[in-house]
């Protein structure tokens, strides 16, 4: 039997793969893909179901009552009503139907040593800082890519604004709740699934290619065609940190910071003006190139400081 120690370059204690999938000597790539699909279906369907129930409980009367106004007004009102149920359903379903099933699949199919398998292991503070700094450099680039497609498609500003309503907060209390729902929850749950399970399992057969596959699938899973490229690139970058560091922590930190900056940029005063104007990352083409160069430099440094994991 393969041992975890062989798989993780000596970063975890020697453990055997004793899950049902491993015992049957089945295809490991198949396990990664099927596991991801099962959890994806489970999460998507239950999230929709929970949202419908919450909308029905909270605001079905309001939804029915609001029939006047043009398309924009109705869309804006519906989004406003869906905002809270969606936040609750994301929070509940990510933990119950993404986080827990991932742990269950690892335990059932692969090994009882779940934390070792998904690579919950310590890394140096420097590795963490460089990963986060690279992610910050990437944010204006990803924003630029998304904006490019939005402009090409002539998406009206008011429509884009309505779409960001779910991430917008108007009080400190709401901001903190959003940090929990939009920053902490996906950073833990999505990273555990996409990197801790999917990429980790693919890596056993495909090596470095796994980070690109996991990154692209990460982009596709969000079902946002306009953000597909930027999300896939972000996924690849997080995958790179996971692959090089042999730890899930940089990915969690990067995902958290990426979402946190988005949430902070949409923290508004009661008059509608943003509180932290510094987090508005709309930049020029030249600025984007400079950010990319910085990011490349940081990734190179990351490559050097994580070389020890490959010796």
């Amino acid at each position, binding site marked *: 039997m393969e041992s975890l120690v062989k798989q993780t370059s000596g970063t975890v204690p020697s453990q055997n793969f004793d899950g049902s999938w491993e015992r049957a000597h*089945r295809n490991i790539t*198949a396990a990664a893909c099927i596991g991801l699909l099962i959890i994806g279906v489970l999460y998507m369907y239950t999230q929709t179901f929970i949202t419908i129930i919450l909308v029905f409980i909270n605001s079905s009367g309001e939804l029915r009552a609001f029939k006047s106004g043009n398309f924009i007004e109705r869309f804006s009102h519906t989004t406003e009503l869906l905002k809270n149920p969606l936040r609750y359903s994301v929070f509940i379903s990510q933990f119950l139907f993404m986080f827990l099933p991932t742990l269950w699949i690892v335990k059932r199919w692969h090994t009882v040593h779940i934390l070792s398998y998904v690579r919950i292991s310590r890394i140096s503070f420097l590795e963490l800082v460089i990963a986060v700094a690279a992610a910050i450099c990437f944010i204006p680039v990803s924003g630029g890519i998304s904006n490019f497609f939005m402009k090409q498609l002539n998406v009206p500003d008011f429509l884009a604004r309505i779409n960001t309503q779910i991430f917008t907060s108007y009080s400190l209390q709401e901001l903190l709740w959003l940090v929990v729902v939009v920053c902490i929850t996906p950073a833990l749950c999505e990273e555990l699934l996409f990197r801790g399970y999917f990429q980790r399992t693919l890596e056993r057969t495909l090596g470095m290619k796994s980070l690109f596959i996991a990154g692209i699938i990460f982009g596709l899973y969000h079902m946002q065609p306009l953000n597909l490229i930027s999300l896939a690139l972000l996924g690849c970058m997080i995958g790179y940190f996971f692959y090089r560091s042999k730890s899930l922590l940089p990915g969690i930190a990067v995902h958290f910071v990426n979402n946190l900056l988005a949430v902070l940029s949409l923290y508004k005063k009661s008059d509608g003006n943003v509180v932290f104007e510094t987090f508005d990352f709309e930049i020029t083409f030249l600025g984007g190139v400079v950010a990319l160069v910085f990011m490349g430099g940081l990734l190179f440094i990351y490559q050097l400081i994580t070389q020890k994991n490959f010796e």
Partner: protein
Amino acid sequence: MNPPLLPLTLGDIFEKTFSLIGKTFFRNLLISAVILLFPIILMAIATDAFYSSLADMQGSILHSRNEPGLDMILAILGPLTFFGCTTIIFALGVLLAEIAISIIVSQEILSNPITFFDALHEAFSMKCLYGIGQGILKYLILIGGVVIVGIVIAILAAVSKVLMGLISIICLLALVPVLIYVAIKWYFALTSVAVDDLTIIESLRNSWYLVEGHWWRTFGILILLYILSNFFIYIISLPITFGSMWDFYKEYFTILQKTGGNIDPQSVVQLEKSVGPGIAIGSGISALLSLMITPVFTVVMYYDLRARGNVGATSKQQPMIKQDTSSEPIDLSNL
């Protein structure tokens, strides 16, 4: 003659399907592309023509504020017929591709891999006619059941409306499970034609007996596999469909930008004209992706059911396939 096979667990079915998709992917893609390229182009033209004439009709109605006249209905009848014909051609193409892919997958399971050209050659034989025949017969019987129930309801409606309502509900409640039951029992008819070269009636009988005693298991696994594969197809085809409808969305957002949400119904009607090709391309891509997965798990399940029938089949349940029990059983886990 085929040697007997070993039954599979759910995990085995998942894994074998995945492995076989990987092993046969390019051949299957080539087959699907060769067979479906022309129908997809044809369907895109037909969908475009249909939506354009539909938009013209809606535009005239909006303009004159009258009910659609006979001339309007006749004007849309041509594109509608063309659309219907291309849809049938497309469905036949999908069926042919399914036969060819099933042959490839089956030969792969039997450790006798064949080229896509051989599979195509085999598919364009009597198998093609039997496949179409079983499909037509199957759906005629299923639809026939619905029609008979409809006639009964119509007769009752003439007698009493209360009675009609009551009977309609009872009939619907009874009909849906029956249709599902029969559809599952005949699910492997096309695979029987492709893999075992059976005729129309033989394939339906074979599928019926194969599922005998394993109906709930087959139903559950099929539902699960369909949900998983459709989810995969959806996430892959979403950006492709979005891209193919780029011009439509761009125009829509431009109108939205200009009007601030107060869209003129005439503009929406004009927009409809550009939606056709995008829908056809999206449907085509989804069908192509579906063909990469569905026939594969169907063949895997077919062999699994054959193995199960082999273990405990009574003479009544014995499938049509005659198996050579003197040979070593094929263990699909070796794939």
